[in-house]
């Protein structure tokens, strides 16, 4: 590729990245802006807005609710996603499995607005609005397709024979799963949990519809305050959200990296479908066998 072309591409790339990441970066200075209006450059910097945010019962409650909901969503979506992924990859009844795929991808296809409206008209009849449980359930529905995809991919790389071997060696079916397959799935589980957590923390539309007058999560509260009044605490909330998702992503990413390292990459990963390993290492056998035989 010629130089001019390459430079042009890099300009485009830089512009795209700036475009996508600028908002995140700007949130922090905005939250420290001493002026309550959205002015740049900030006349001064102050932490007072942060102070007000953390002292405000309304905002703190919203933050807490976001955290609780996210936790619930992670637990529910990972649990259901795990069982479903296991069924998908290990079941003998493979005829039915292809039917599951379209159903699971529906929440990804259908705009979440429609999903929210649908649940709304049901929930209002059943007086389920305002509770956080319905938010957890709905966001879990949104998260499950991603979690399922992730976990299924991981399970497909794990040899089903491993559990069978454990079973013949004397541990019950579930014990075999817990001691053999589950440890091998830890990286995928972490990635799925992070995915679900971030999805839940960010999710606004469904939560909005489920809590029309009450008890909102953080992004919903933000949204309302942007709409109806120019609250100087909004940028603080934004900064907190950026920080929270960053924290989840960072911690999760680190945990993922740790878990992968422990399972070992490089020469043979956690799957042990041994055929290629064998052909690769028969040459070494000569050397190492010589070692052992000489003992």
């Amino acid at each position, binding site marked *: 590729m010629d130089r001019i072309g390459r430079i042009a591409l890099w300009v485009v*790339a830089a512009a795209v990245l700036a475009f*996508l990441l600028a908002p995140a970066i*700007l949130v922090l200075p905005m939250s420290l802006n001493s002026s309550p209006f959205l002015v740049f450059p900030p006349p001064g910097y102050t932490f007072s807005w942060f102070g007000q945010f953390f002292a405000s019962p309304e905002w703190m409650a919203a933050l807490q609710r976001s955290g609780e909901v996210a936790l619930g969503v992670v637990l529910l979506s990972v649990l259901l996603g795990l069982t479903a992924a296991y069924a*998908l990859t290990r079941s003998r009844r493979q005829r039915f499995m292809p039917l599951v795929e379209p159903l699971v991808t529906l*929440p990804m296809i259908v705009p979440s607005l429609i999903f929210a409206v*649908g649940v709304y008209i049901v929930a209002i009849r059943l007086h389920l609005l305002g509770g956080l449980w319905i938010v957890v359930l709905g966001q879990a529905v949104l998260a499950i397709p991603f979690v399922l995809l992730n976990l299924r991919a991981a399970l497909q790389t794990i040899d089903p024979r491993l559990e069978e071997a454990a079973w013949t060696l004397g541990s019950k079916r579930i014990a075999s799963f817990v001691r053999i397959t589950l440890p091998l799935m830890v990286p995928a589980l972490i990635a799925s949990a992070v995915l679900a957590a971030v999805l839940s923390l960010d999710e606004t539309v469904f939560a909005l519809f489920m809590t029309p007058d009450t008890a909102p999560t953080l992004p919903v509260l*933000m949204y309302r305050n942007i709409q109806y009044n120019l609250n100087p605490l909004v940028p603080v909330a*934004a900064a907190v959200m950026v920080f929270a998702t960053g924290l989840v992503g960072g911690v999760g990413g680190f945990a993922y990296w740790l878990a992968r390292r422990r399972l070992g990459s490089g020469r043979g990963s956690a799957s042990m479908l041994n055929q290629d390993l064998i052909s690769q290492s028969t040459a070494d056998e000569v050397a190492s066998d010589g070692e052992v035989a000489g003992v």
Partner: protein
Amino acid sequence: MASGSRRKQRDLDVGWLMTPMLVLLLILFVVPVGLLLLRSFTGNPGGLTAYREFLGTPEFVGILWRTIYVALIVTLISLAVGYPYAYLAARSSTRVQRILIGLVSVSLFLSLVVRCYAWLAILGPGGVLNLVAHSVGLNVRINGVHNMFGVLVGDLQYTLPFVILPIYDVMRRVDPRLMSAAATLGGGPVRRFIRVYLPSTMPGVAAGCLVAFVATLGYYITPSILGAPQNMMIGQLIAGLMLTSLQWDLGTAVASILLVTAVAFFVGFRRIMARVA
């Protein structure tokens, strides 16, 4: 000697583990959405009245067209900008690739509300854009918010990654030898690109555009924050009808139209891809 008896039950297959998830999806997704569709027909007076009302109100139809129009534009811009980005990433070293794609993925981690709010600040009268313009001597007052421009910017935030990622994915799988082979067969670089490379990336392009288009149709938060009432999109219309004016007949009808449109696009896409393959 006892002869073997025909066994009646087999070992319970693990397939049943699928049930919890299926139940959740069924109860919380399929049923409510189905009920929504149903509701659009069972209002008062019911039948197709709501749909007729929708199609008969020029403002509503205008909103629909505007939404489609915006979605199209956003998709095209995303494609125009995203394709080169993906191309660069696919042709770079592994390290650079990871960074380029990683940063795009990271941007998805950010809440839409946060980002729209930030754009309010950037594009608004007191915002960064004006600051930058003034500092280079441009004596203008840019107002990028509460208008269509703001909406476009906001929409692009999410559609760009959704377009870039599938295209990158497809590009990554293009066999580099394909282009070398094409080179030996004669024809300039432009011709090679158009006739060989472009077609082989089409599946990713199509997938990305599909997702971007359908998603944009349903956007609600973005136009609310960054747009003005006269830029209303169909998502806001639905929300207003359902939450504010409580016109559920009409609201569910419009929502159903959006639903059917989204599904139709996806199904049509699958059919075309199957035909092409």
